[in-house]
């Protein structure tokens, strides 16, 4: 492992039993829990009232078979450790997850289902989840899915865990499909206004080109191509634009993914709008940073939450008050009655006593 000089890495440990005991104890006392990895994404979602249950010590890569494109790790395993191991074998997590902190864990990443610039072209976290071992709200250890890519035995409870913000169960282990890392990548920059960039990014995505990311920020459209040397070279020649220096390009995509671009800071609420990618410029008072080829837009604004949600909803998408919003109120997009009722019943089926992260996603879930 590539440990930093001053960082001491705790040893791999299987804390399944301790975690199960903690859950049984919480059940006995009827005391809800807040499941926490490193806390790097603790800012996301509504405020949760439960008692902290740290899973950070439950860590370690359980199996990794490069030729099977599958990796299984305990939920507390740092993402950085996983990515570094995969990198040494020329592979990657193709959903390019944001870390939002040095200690980001696999469990938190899956629970939040966040994905980076490659998402529209490769898939989201949920698309790569093959199997999970979980503890449900009754304290039972259950295993769903597995380490194979095709598996339709039983309901896909593993994928359901992705993006559930820890409200349906405690993740013990996750098996992920991994992919070969591209041999070469090139990023092209184009001067574009926002409406034209949206048109161009979607035209690009509709053509058989090895596009792996498309973003727009402050008058510049960025298109990343990934693949073999000849494939990328041919696509670059076809698209034109200015090829960025590799290091500059790498830094740009990383800053976009980790929200270090200037546009992410400032006043107001940081909103995430998830939209059909070809949606035009938004009638809101702040400029967006566009990722996911138009499907994900970030903006800081003081505009009324209702209005931001209305704009997203009108376009067929939804809005999340990602950072610095009212964490007592609605963070995620409100859902209709039938859908909310289904959510409550699904929550009851997996966590009947409301033990895990109560209210983190929606009040009452």
């Amino acid at each position, binding site marked *: 492992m590539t440990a930093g000089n001053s960082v001491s890495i705790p040893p791999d440990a299987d804390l399944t039993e301790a975690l199960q005991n903690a859950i049984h104890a919480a059940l006995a006392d009827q005391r809800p829990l807040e499941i926490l990895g490193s806390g790097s994404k603790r800012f996301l979602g509504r405020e949760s009232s439960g008692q902290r249950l740290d899973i950070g010590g439950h860590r370690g890569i359980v199996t990794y078979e490069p030729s099977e494109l599958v990796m299984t790790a305990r939920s507390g395993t740092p993402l950085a450790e996983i990515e570094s191991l995969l990198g040494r074998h020329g592979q990657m997590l193709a959903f390019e997850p944001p870390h939002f902190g040095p200690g980001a864990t696999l469990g938190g990443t899956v629970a939040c289902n966040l994905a980076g610039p490659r998402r529209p072209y490769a898939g989201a976290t949920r698309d790569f989840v093959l199997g999970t071992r979980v503890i449900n709200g009754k304290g039972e250890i259950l295993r769903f899915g597995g380490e194979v*890519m095709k598996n339709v035995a039983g309901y896909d409870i593993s994928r*359901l865990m992705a993006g559930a913000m820890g409200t349906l169960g405690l993740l013990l282990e996750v098996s992920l499909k991994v992919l070969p890392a591209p041999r070469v990548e090139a990023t092209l920059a184009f001067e574009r206004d926002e409406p034209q960039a949206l048109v161009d990014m979607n035209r690009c995505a509709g053509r058989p080109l090895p596009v792996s990311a498309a973003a727009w920020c402050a008058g510049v459209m960025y298109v990343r191509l990934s693949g073999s040397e000849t494939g990328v070279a041919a696509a670059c020649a076809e698209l034109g634009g200015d090829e960025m220096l590799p290091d500059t390009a790498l830094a740009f995509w990383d800053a976009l993914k980790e929200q270090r671009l200037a546009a992410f800071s400032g006043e107001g609420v940081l909103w995430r709008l998830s939209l059909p990618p070809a949606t035009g410029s938004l009638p809101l008072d702040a400029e967006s940073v566009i990722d996911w080829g138009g499907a994900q837009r970030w903006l800081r604004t003081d505009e009324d939450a209702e209005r931001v949600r209305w704009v997203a909803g009108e376009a067929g998408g939804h809005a999340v008050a990602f950072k610095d919003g009212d964490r007592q109120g609605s963070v995620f997009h409100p859902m209709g009655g039938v859908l909310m009722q*289904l959510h409550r019943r699904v929550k009851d089926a997996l966590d009947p006593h409301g033990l895990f992260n109560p209210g983190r996603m929606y009040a009452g879930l």
Partner: protein
Amino acid sequence: MSCPLPEIRVTSTVGKTEEELSRRRAELAARLGKQLPAGTLLTHEDELRPFECDALSAYRRQPLMVAMPRTVAEVQAVLRTCHDMAVPVVARGAGTGLSGGALPLEQGVLLNLSRMDQVLEVDVPNRLARVQPGVRNLHISERVAQHGLYYAPDPSSQIACSIGGNVAENAGGVHCLKYGLTVHNVASVEVVTIDGQHVRLGGPALDAPGYDLLALIHGSEGLLAVIVEVTVRLLPKPVYAQVAVAAFARVDAAGDAVASIIASGVLPAGLEMMDRGCIEAVNGFLDVGYPDCAGLVLCELDGTQAEVSSQIEAVSGILRDAGAVEVTVSRSEEERLRLWSGRKAAFPAVGRLAPDYYCMDGTIPRRHLARVLNEIKALSEHYRLSVVNVFHAGDGNMHPLILYDANREGELQRAEKLGGEILEACVAAGGTITGEHGVGIEKIDQMCVQFSPTELQQFHDLKAAFDPSGLLNPGKAVPTLARCAEFGAMHVHGGRLPFPDLERF
């Protein structure tokens, strides 16, 4: 031919006399008849016969009646009425399913969705197609071809199977390794719950608020809700594809070659394998001229011409290094299609070897291929039935085909036993009993091997969240704990058998 069917108890009919059942049937027909247009409800025995089975024809049962709605409102009317009268409902698309998922119930309504077959909208800028559930898989790609787009998942029945069924089964195909399963290529579905509520899961953006109920619906085999609309994602059609076909003298060498290709960082669009029995069947069926060998690997690459041309050379080299005795690379589109034609005709070719065959669908970690193939061979000898193997090698999905003759006393039963043991061998190797065909009625006993009682109970609880009265496709996909106790199977956890050293057949 027929099999002893597992009994499915529908609480509403238990203890009812013939007379009561007949009165119920008349009442149901009258109530549905009032709400549905003429010709939408089939009740005569002759009309019902075509629906007595899906593509798993060994299991047959005549439904109480068949409803063939054309609109969401008609689906809602059927479900509300059935809910009201506690009548079970089995949804069916094109009836191409291989696990008996659409097998009717004698006291239930078969809800046939094949008349809902319209493409409602093609959204080219967002690369989406909104279609009704009865639209055929291949038809979507045909409709959007003019825009240079296509719908990627291509189950082998794609000419006939419908998209609603694809979602219900989470159908795969030969291009899953690179392009994913149905669940990776669907943006949203609209469903009707058993009490007639209409709700959309997912949406035209890349994600939706709340739990991923869209993922949960995929592969739920009609037990949670009825799918009435599907919005699929479309991809740009790759401009160029080439296939390399390699012959190996040993099956395990072929398996190693597959592993080497993946480890090299290439992501093939298709990666298939056939064993000797299958190659012989294909060569006897059509003039494809596959080399006579123990294992054949087909590796297809797609993308831009520049990309494919450079990679196909690399792949050919890997195949040769892995011990291939012969490697052929397609040099034209005609040749590519010809080289694939043998693989695509594998099932009909095998169909000529025996009056019947039984297709299994286990998936294993690829590194255990040689071991599982050996176990299959031993089982085949033990049960005195031939087995030939086709294999989606890229993703570990095996399709052992068990050859039998249903007209010979006891052969079907032997074939089923052999099939069951093959699936148990897959679970023991860390795999699963079904990769893409679904559990249905066929593999319901093997679910007891793959899952523990608490896991099965969790499935039942989740089912109840959507369908508290248990009226949607009861008796399929998830066995009751009582059934597992009767079946007496050992739950094999995490690939560890209780006594790994004991020989098992």
